[in-house]
């Protein structure tokens, strides 16, 4: 399973590598680079932060949804932003996790569930 992790804070990269050990992870620190890669490679899952330098996570999400081949890619939002529960429905994302409240086990379980469903 190939997972794109889009988060501009590099300190989180090591964390994701350890928590999601066993998955094929590609890291992107801005949305432009991630979208460029998605032109060539369709990920099985996207783990997306919202507050990024450059295009926000919402912009990336909207962009993905505008392409038929990417529209169905499951997205897990992992962000420090406190979001409404309905956001998952509004944007059609698989899950929304709060960086300040989630646990590593919850993150891994969420990713496993998305990958199983994919």
């Amino acid at each position, binding site marked *: 399973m190939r997972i794109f992790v889009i988060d501009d*804070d590099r300190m989180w990269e090591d*964390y994701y590598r350890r928590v999601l050990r066993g998955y094929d992870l590609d890291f992107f*620190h801005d949305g432009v680079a991630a979208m460029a890669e998605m032109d060539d490679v369709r990920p099985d899952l996207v783990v997306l932060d919202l*507050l990024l*330098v450059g295009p*926000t996570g919402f912009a990336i999400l909207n962009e993905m949804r505008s392409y038929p081949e990417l529209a169905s890619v499951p997205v897990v939002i992992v962000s420090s932003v406190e979001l409404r529960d309905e956001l998952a429905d509004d944007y059609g994302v698989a899950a929304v996790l709060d*960086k*300040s409240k989630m646990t590593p086990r919850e993150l891994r379980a969420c990713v496993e569930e998305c990958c199983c469903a994919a």
Partner: protein
Amino acid sequence: MKSEVIGSSAGGLSSGAVVVAHELKAPLSLMRQLALSLELEDDKAGVKRVGDQIVATSERALRQVNDLLKVARLDDALFEMEPVNPRAVCDDVVSELWQLFRFNRRELKIDYRNRRHLVVANRQLLHSVVYNFCLNAMNYGGEELPSEVMISDRKNGRIRVAVRDYGPAVPTRIWREIKDGFVNRPLEIAMRPGSSGMGLYIAAKFANYMGADFGLIRHRDGTSFYVDLQISGQLSLV
């Protein structure tokens, strides 16, 4: 904390306090996640690495809190000006930050071109200025080239201490505010934790206190933030 740090009041809590809370939420969230993830580690090296990351992240957050406390106490004139060797200060900062840069998959190098003069500064405040410049470069610098801590002589009897990054251009609005010397609030470089521009705000305050010129140069491929400091009349003993 003083009102000039806090900024305008909004919703019962000042905007500055909101920025500070936002800034500190990022390292606190990361430290919590790293601590929780320790249970996933089954070898000593992995545990040590996570421990080092927690320490580096907490030290960075603590330094930011300490700097904000210093900003609040600037008016008390607690920070005496003295002859300071800028190379020694920059060496200290680089030594302090190399591990944090490594965890961020970044590099930091030095490029000293000044003759060995002392500058008139407060050592603690100059350290904070350079530290905050470096953190800014770490957050916004590109991945291909290392950020550089540079010291050079100026023609006007000053020495420039600068940090050069190879990241995206600073927004024109921010550039203008700094150029005009209007840095009275954290500058929002990007709306995300850790990017409120708090470090630049702190650096500008400390530079102003030391009578240094604070500014930035926009390059085609990045930005240099700098302070120009008065050369001390005292001969360098180094």
